[in-house]
């Protein structure tokens, strides 16, 4: 009897959303450690998990202070992607002319590797925060535009007609129909964008910066300090996860009505 209750409690704990990825992560770390031991991989090629944890523990204050510049650059670039991406998507979806002029060029510009042009930003904007922000913006921008265009375009034209027939002006119809309809698509773009913005910020730090996790990465590669490098990677991954989670929370607040959020709603009701 008590055993059954115990097992059902364990099953419930296993159902917690955060537990499964953590379990999986533990399995990966164990596999990592085991393969180093079994295949005798030297520490200068792949550090052991323990070495990484030790570095994380010992140089935590330094790593934390380097995390902030990267976070600022990422968030700044991400916000710029939203501020520019959504209105541009509105224009593209709203006008055939704008679409025919802008969209192909936008796609074309995306084919240029950002890493290749990142040094240019250093030439133009120096070594401060700005080139990193721009680099993060350039990577985060495109997914926002693409998904928002798709969101704005998938509005049922009959629904727009309905609102127009009730004498709604363009702005009213947009706010009442088009924008809320596009929000789920916009948010899926934002989630992709925020993780890419992290990459963009690190690329910016690679090419010209003396602060940030990207800088730590580059320095540790230069000195073959692999544990530090892996610690930096762990921090970057955590940063991405946290930012993604924040966007996900905001999405739940903004579009609780959407099909992807419905199970929460039933629980709430």
């Amino acid at each position, binding site marked *: 009897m008590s055993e059954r209750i115990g097992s059902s409690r364990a099953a419930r704990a296993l159902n917690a959303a955060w537990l499964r990825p953590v379990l999986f992560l533990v399995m990966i770390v164990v596999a990592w450690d085991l393969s180093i031991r079994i295949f005798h991989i030297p520490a200068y090629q792949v550090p052991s998990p323990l070495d990484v944890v030790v570095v994380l523990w010992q140089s935590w204050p330094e790593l934390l202070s380097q995390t902030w510049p990267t976070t600022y650059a990422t968030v700044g670039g991400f916000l710029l992607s939203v501020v520019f991406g959504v209105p541009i998507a509105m224009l593209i979806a709203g006008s055939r002319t704008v679409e025919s002029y802008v969209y192909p060029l936008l796609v074309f510009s995306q084919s240029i590797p950002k890493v290749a042009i990142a040094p240019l930003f250093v030439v133009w904007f120096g070594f401060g925060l700005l080139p990193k922000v721009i680099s993060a913006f350039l990577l985060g921008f495109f997914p926002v535009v693409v998904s928002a265009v798709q969101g704005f375009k998938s509005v049922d034209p009959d*629904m727009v007609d309905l609102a127009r027939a009730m004498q709604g002006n363009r702005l009213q119809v947009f706010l*009442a*129909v088009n924008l*809320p309809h596009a929000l789920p698509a916009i948010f899926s773009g934002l989630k992709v964008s925020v993780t890419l913005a992290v990459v963009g910020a690190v690329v910016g730090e690679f090419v010209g910066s003396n602060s940030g996790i990207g800088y730590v990465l580059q320095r540790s590669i230069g000195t073959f300090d692999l544990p530090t490098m892996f610690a930096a990677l762990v921090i970057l991954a955590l940063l991405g996860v946290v930012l993604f989670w924040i966007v996900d929370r905001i999405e739940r607040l903004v*579009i609780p*009505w959407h099909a992807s959020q419905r199970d929460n*709603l039933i629980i709430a009701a």
Partner: protein
Amino acid sequence: MKGGPALSIAANNGAGARDSHLRVVSEAPAHTSGIRLSGVSKTYRSRDGDVPSLRPLDFQINDGEFFVVVGPSGCGKSTLLKMISGLLPPSTGEILVDGEKVTKPHGNAGIVFQNALLLPWRTVLSNVMLPIDMKRLPRAEYLPRAKKLLEMVGLAGFENKLPWQLSGGMQQRASICRALVHDPKIMMMDEPFGALDAMTRERMNYELRRIQRETGKTILLITHSIPEAVFLADRVLVMTERPGSIAAIYDVPLGHDRSLDVMTSPAFADLVQRIRKHFFTQGALD
């Protein structure tokens, strides 16, 4: 029928001075009231040249009439609806609503499409109130009317549900309330029950006649179904294939109070047969 008189009182309160103005106009000679189309045609321009959608049409929909347009698909029925609501300008001719020429959306029409098209982020009540928001009318004044309408269509208690929590038939009822909430002159319905199953459809037809009787609204309904057209209509307009034109207009001599039993009467069968012949001779229905 408690809903009937109470509803019309609410309508008068809600629309106020604007409505009394309409009443005066509707007492004027017959040619300035109702909805009048004279020489209205529509030709779409495309890259391959002009595509005629509607040949010039002349007809009148009287106030309080249940007017049904029946025709094969692609005969320009939906174009007709969009032109009357002012969403689409006619290529030739003019449309008069109460003697005033339609040039832009006039907000004096409520529209019901085949899909209920409720906004998924708004509650049922809030969806019904959409025209009030769009027209910037005072919300507080129309809220009781919206609730009355929901009660009339049997959706009392569902005001705060979200659309996906309702069945297809219930959603379509809500969209009928939305089309009526601002007390428009005419309710236009584009194959409103086409997406519903046959049994729900029959019930909705019966309900719709009741709603029309209770509200006294002018209704323009578009359908493929000949029995549906005859059951609902005071007058039926039969359209030809594309480019659409008027094949005939029939008065339906079945009286105002109709139960579903009317469908078995000889007069009903006779009219259905006569309308069907139009399509047989055209070869539109096999």
